[in-house]
């Protein structure tokens, strides 16, 4: 894992003092809310329906045990004893007092964490593959490159007042587990024909009200030009991105309106110019970062057979583990989606347990997934049963990774001031319905994603089944979408037709799964069947 040196620590400490000062000026009345707003937004502090919400950055989702512990302590000390893990691999607290904000940032800084650039029209926290450094299929660990970009984008003097927020994801395997092409910039590390590592750049993806899949802008950027190329992509956007209309301000609109070819031409010209400016960090810095993400001390184990005599354990192993690059190891997913629970919420006690299990079983490391679950990346297969037993005792062993009840849901109308409809109760009702009727276990991989409004924080465009909350004459109403994917076969879901009320949408989801079960061919996932048979049979069953 990356560790701060004296420079990183000094920057974060300076930020804590600056924000403490700004909060104090607000509390004393020297700053109006209007003046304070842009300052607090630079530090992830939103004013929501009931209280302040604080968003903490978790770079590329990676946490040490000690970091998870301090997140738990903050939940106890300053919130109501729980925290919410988000689709951007970050964590949010929903009940924060302004008086405490400075102290919370100081607590975070004591464990090398911060809330810098977690909101505002700047480059946000960099996300990555939650199985980075562990996955059998990766060409390299993407996180050193994400860390290089994190440092470059921190307090960037030219790109802190962009037309709109800017999200970057970095992956390094053919399987996309980070929705890379749905980011403003998606970077995929690849090897060229000469076997050299480089970066493929995809620019102009995004969700929100106009979802778009990012086109490839460059097939191969050499590693010693990565920052320069990113700088060129951002400069073209900062100069030419639309600022006349907030809803057309994301880079996806610029790339779409210019066309990928013209955008590429402008980036390449800026890139040529910037190469001469010599703004790239020395290559030794990349080598320094790579060292932090090396082998954590894997043992040379023989491939292990897992004892499957306990069927509940065997089911959890089948669903919640992922192949590791080293024999005898696996990555284990801790589900934060118990039946009827709030997706992504964890209590302070659960967070402490996850922290301790990470320390004991996974080289002191855990990851936040964009699906709002937690990964222990490096678990010895021989330890799996002991791990599972402890998780089960704490209600953290739900065997549902990528099942219908592994629902992504945004905070919705329960917390969010922009919401049209509630997301959390819909997620709860769906998971309860499929647990009660027993169908949940028959469906296989089915990704269900819910957003409480068009902003798409819950990734509904990318759900095999998506649900979008809308406001219909003052009443909460839900649209059903089918056929989205955020994986390497990225696609955008389509709306089935008229929306439903809260109970109606739960029924509609069940109806859609019935159509799948009646039509599925051998080995087909819901998404495959939908792609084969199309929308018509679903429409017929839903509205017929």
């Amino acid at each position, binding site marked *: 894992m990356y560790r701060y*040196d004296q*420079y*990183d620590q*000094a*920057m974060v400490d*300076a*930020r804590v*003092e*600056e924000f403490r000062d700004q909060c104090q000026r607000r509390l004393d009345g020297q700053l109006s809310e209007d003046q304070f707003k*842009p*300052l607090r937004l630079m530090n992830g502090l939103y004013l929501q329906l009931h209280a302040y919400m604080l968003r903490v950055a978790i770079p590329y989702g990676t946490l040490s045990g000690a970091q998870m512990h301090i997140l738990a302590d903050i939940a106890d000390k300053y919130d109501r004893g729980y925290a919410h893990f988000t689709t951007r691999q970050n964590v949010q607290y929903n009940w924060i007092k302004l008086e405490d904000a400075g102290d919370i940032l100081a607590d975070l800084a004591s464990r090398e964490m911060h809330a810098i650039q977690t909101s505002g*029209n700047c480059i946000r926290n960099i996300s990555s593959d939650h199985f980075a450094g562990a996955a059998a299929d990766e060409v390299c660990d993407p996180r050193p490159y994400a860390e290089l970009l994190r*440092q*470059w984008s*921190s*307090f*960037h*003097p*030219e*790109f*802190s*007042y*962009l*037309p709109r927020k800017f999200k970057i994801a970095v992956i390094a395997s053919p399987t996309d587990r980070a929705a890379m092409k749905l980011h403003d910039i998606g970077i995929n590390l690849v090897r060229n024909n000469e076997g050299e590592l480089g970066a493929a750049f995809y620019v102009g993806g995004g969700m929100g009200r106009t979802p778009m899949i990012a086109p490839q802008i460059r097939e191969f950027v050499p590693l010693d030009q990565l*920052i320069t190329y990113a700088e060129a992509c951002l*400069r073209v956007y*900062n*100069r030419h991105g639309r*600022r006349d209309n907030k809803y057309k301000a994301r880079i996806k609109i610029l790339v779409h309106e210019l066309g990928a070819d013209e955008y590429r031409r402008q980036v390449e010209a800026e890139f040529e*110019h910037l190469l001469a*400016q*010599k*703004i*790239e*960090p*020395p290559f*030794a*810095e990349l080598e*320094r970062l790579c060292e932090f993400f090396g082998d954590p001390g894997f043992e040379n184990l023989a491939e292990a057979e897992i004892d499957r005599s306990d069927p509940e354990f065997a089911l959890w192993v089948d669903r919640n583990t992922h192949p590791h690059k080293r024999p005898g190891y696996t990555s284990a997913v801790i589900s934060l989606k118990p039946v009827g629970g709030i997706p992504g919420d964890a209590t302070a006690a659960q967070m402490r347990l996850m922290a301790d299990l990470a320390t004991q079983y996974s080289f002191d490391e855990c990851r936040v997934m964009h699906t709002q679950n937690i990964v222990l990346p490096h678990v010895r297969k021989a330890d799996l049963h002991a791990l599972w037993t402890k998780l089960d005792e704490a209600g953290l062993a739900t065997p549902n990774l990528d099942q219908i009840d592994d629902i992504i849901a945004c905070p919705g109308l329960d917390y969010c001031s922009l919401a049209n409809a509630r997301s959390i109760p819909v997620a709860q009702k769906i998971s309860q319905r499929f647990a009660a009727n027993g169908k949940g276990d028959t469906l296989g991989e089915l990704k269900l994603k819910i957003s409480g409004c068009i902003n798409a924080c819950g990734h509904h465009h990318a759900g095999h089944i998506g649900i979008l909350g809308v406001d219909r004459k003052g009443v909460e109403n839900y649209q059903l979408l089918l056929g989205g994917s955020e994986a390497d076969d990225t696609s955008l879901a389509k709306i089935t037709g008229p929306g439903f009320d809260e109970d109606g949408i739960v029924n509609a989801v069940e109806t859609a799964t019935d159509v799948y079960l009646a039509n599925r061919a051998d080995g087909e996932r819901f998404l495959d069947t939908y792609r084969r048979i199309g929308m018509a049979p679903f429409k017929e069953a839903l509205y017929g």
Partner: protein
Amino acid sequence: MVDHTSTTPSGAEGRGPEARPFLRFRDDDPVGDPAVTVNAFLGQGNATAVRIEPGDDTRELLPHLDRVALVEVNFPTLGDGRGYSAARILREEGYTGELRAVGNVLVDQLAFMRRCGFDAFEPGEPLDAADVEAALGRFPHVYQQAADSAVPIWSLRHGKEAGARNG
């Protein structure tokens, strides 16, 4: 890389009592000529001061930089960050004259503006001198190469001296 900055700001020197608030990090005398629009500048062979609006293409000025002594960059709103790119491009192209941010310039933006090459400020609202000093001294380091002479952290880590370039 040009380093034409003096470290201490000067007040409204060389201006009458009616002068607007003014903060300057240069040792030479301020240009007296009024700045004209980019279009007017390109049309007039003798203007030495020009004012860039957010929608202007800074690069149109490049063939004429040798006759420019003052570039004003207007920030009509706080959130419109195009002026940061305009400033940096001018410095990257070797412009050494005065680069002045005008309009919606708040104390919290000064440090970034300095890094993009601005060496004079004419904010709509006067800035408190103590706030300016605090804001410019707040962060001990920088993380990236820009248009100033600050050495990025990643170079400090690998033993680069102040003033050295990356690469």
